[in-house]
């Protein structure tokens, strides 16, 4: 990057999870059989009239407010024209000069801990296009198959300002945007299913310059990793073009994941001439302040606000706060546990540690986790009460996770109550000492490491149920006598 700086802006498309499409009653369900979720409206048949799905506006305003945008009091829909088989009407209904919302910002943090702010230029509503499947690509008669199930699925397009300065910052922006949108509950944001898609505009310029260089647009970014790698590649490519005395050509390029390069795309002929005009089939939208206020009130606490609160109120590290707020469900689970068992750091360790491990291993979402917050809190109280050891608690958690049982029930059933009775343990300690004269001698000759072995033997004899602190104390007492 010697002497150069990158200027990046991202265009993100998010599919809204309404039940029906934006302008008709066809289903938006993902993965259905081809062309089985279509009707005359989304097929663009003559004589049909689109009617706006109110929920799309509601969801759009929710995202706009979460991104600190001004919501337009008046907006409208426009037709964007281009010919492509995935677009049955030969135009896409979108918003051109009067978008739903504008002038927002998103705060995010890069992995190095640095805080950034990126402007949100606009948020607008539009309809998705269909899907093309290419066949016989290398044969004599290539053709394409079209599935219009996705046609008319509601999309929000979120356009950032050219405020991002590195590939890592672009990745971090996108992760935070996804987190915020998931918090608002309007989209699954699954990049692998295409419900979150990203295009990037990137240029480079000499550091300190205010003039923008020629930009390229990068498409086919299907994962967070792809965004990072493709931009890294493209920034280096553009710098090397300038270093060699050349000029960057304004063009659309596609990320080739396998080869790890961006390649120029054959452009749709004069595709930039979209001939926008207001859609006469759709009437304008007038959004009242009371509607906006109502949606604002119903917004959940957003991730950044939560992170600040976790650090301040709960005394958690920035890292813990970041991990716990990545998904709204995790944050809500954690907070419910803390409400019932007010030791945030302990709860955080269990939620991020053993519980997360079990959830990952079994591919279970925390919302479906059989261990409910009240049960985890009860488990932690059993440790505090000395009923069970921390080690046994991990075992009990596994059983709770599998069966959904209360910790008390698991303890009783499996006879896992901690042994804290000094007489019972004393007898066991005596037995272990008698059976292992070698280590006993080692210890007495100053090899204190042998103590660990002896503790282990007592724990083994009790199947882990002995109170470790008491075992330690008893062993020392007898050995040092």
């Amino acid at each position, binding site marked *: 990057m010697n002497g150069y700086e990158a200027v990046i802006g991202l265009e993100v498309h998010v599919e809204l999870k309404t039940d029906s499409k934006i302008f*008709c*009653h066809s*289903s938006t369900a993902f993965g259905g059989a081809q062309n089985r979720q*279509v*009707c005359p409206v989304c097929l663009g048949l003559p004589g049909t009239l689109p009617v706006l799905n109110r929920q799309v506006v509601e969801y759009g305003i929710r995202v706009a407010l979460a991104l600190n945008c001004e919501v337009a009091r008046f907006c409208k829909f426009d037709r964007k024209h281009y010919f492509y088989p995935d677009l049955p009407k030969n135009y896409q209904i979108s918003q051109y000069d009067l978008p739903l919302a504008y002038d927002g910002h998103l705060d995010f943090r890069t992995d190095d801990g640095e805080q950034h702010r990126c402007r949100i230029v606009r948020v607008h509503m539009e309809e998705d296009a269909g899907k093309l499947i290419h066949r016989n690509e290398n044969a004599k008669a290539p053709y394409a198959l079209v599935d219009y199930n996705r046609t008319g699925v509601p999309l929000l397009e979120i356009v950032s300002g050219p405020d991002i300065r590195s590939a890592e910052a672009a990745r971090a922006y996108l992760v935070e945007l996804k987190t915020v949108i998931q918090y608002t509950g309007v989209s699954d944001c699954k990049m692998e299913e295409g419900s979150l898609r990203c295009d990037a505009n990137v240029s480079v310029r000499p550091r300190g310059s205010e003039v923008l260089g020629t930009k390229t647009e990068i498409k086919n970014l299907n994962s967070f990793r792809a965004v990072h790698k493709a931009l890294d590649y493209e920034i280096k490519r553009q710098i090397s073009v300038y270093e060699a005395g050349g000029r960057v050509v304004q063009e659309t390029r596609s990320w080739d994941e396998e080869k790890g390069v961006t390649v120029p795309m054959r452009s749709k002929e004069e595709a930039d001439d979209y001939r926008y005009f207001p859609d006469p089939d759709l*009437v304008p939208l*007038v959004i009242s302040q009371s509607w906006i206020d109502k949606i604002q009130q119903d917004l959940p606490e957003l991730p950044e606000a939560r992170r600040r609160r976790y650090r301040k109120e709960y005394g958690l590290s920035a890292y813990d706060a970041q991990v716990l707020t990545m998904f709204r469900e995790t944050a809500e689970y954690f907070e419910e546990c803390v409400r019932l068992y007010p030791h945030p750091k302990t709860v955080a360790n269990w939620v991020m540690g053993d519980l997360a491990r079990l959830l990952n291993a079994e591919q279970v979402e925390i919302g479906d986790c059989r261990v409910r917050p009240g049960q985890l809190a009860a488990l932690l109280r059993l440790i505090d009460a000395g009923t069970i050891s921390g080690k046994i608690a991990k075992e009990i958690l596994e059983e709770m996770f599998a069966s959904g049982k209360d910790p008390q029930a698991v303890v009783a059933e499996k006879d896992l109550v901690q042994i804290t009775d000094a007489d019972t343990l004393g007898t066991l300690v005596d037995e272990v000492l008698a059976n292992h004269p070698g280590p006993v001698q080692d210890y007495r000759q100053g090899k204190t490491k042998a103590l660990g072995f002896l503790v282990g033997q007592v724990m083994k004899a009790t199947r882990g149920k002995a109170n470790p602190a008491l075992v330690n104390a008893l062993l020392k007492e007898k050995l040092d006598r």
Partner: protein
Amino acid sequence: MLTKAEVEHVALLARLDLSDEEKERYTTQLAKILEYAKILDELDTADVSPTAHVLPLQNVFRPDRVGPHLPAEDVVGNSPDEEDGFFKVPRIF
């Protein structure tokens, strides 16, 4: 004045393959139509706010409910070609 190059551009956008004779003819005809429409420029619209829609309607919504889909045979019934319930189209690029 409308130029022949502009007619060629519009024809390309509309995927129309015009002959040279047609291009000449449409350049003249379209120029006349545009000239006529220019009468509108004579109106003083200084006090008229931009109009997005001519009807006095706003906020026409439908509820988010799924309704019946088109039967499979009707979906592809009118298409020139189909395969497996998909619309079949020539290769694009």
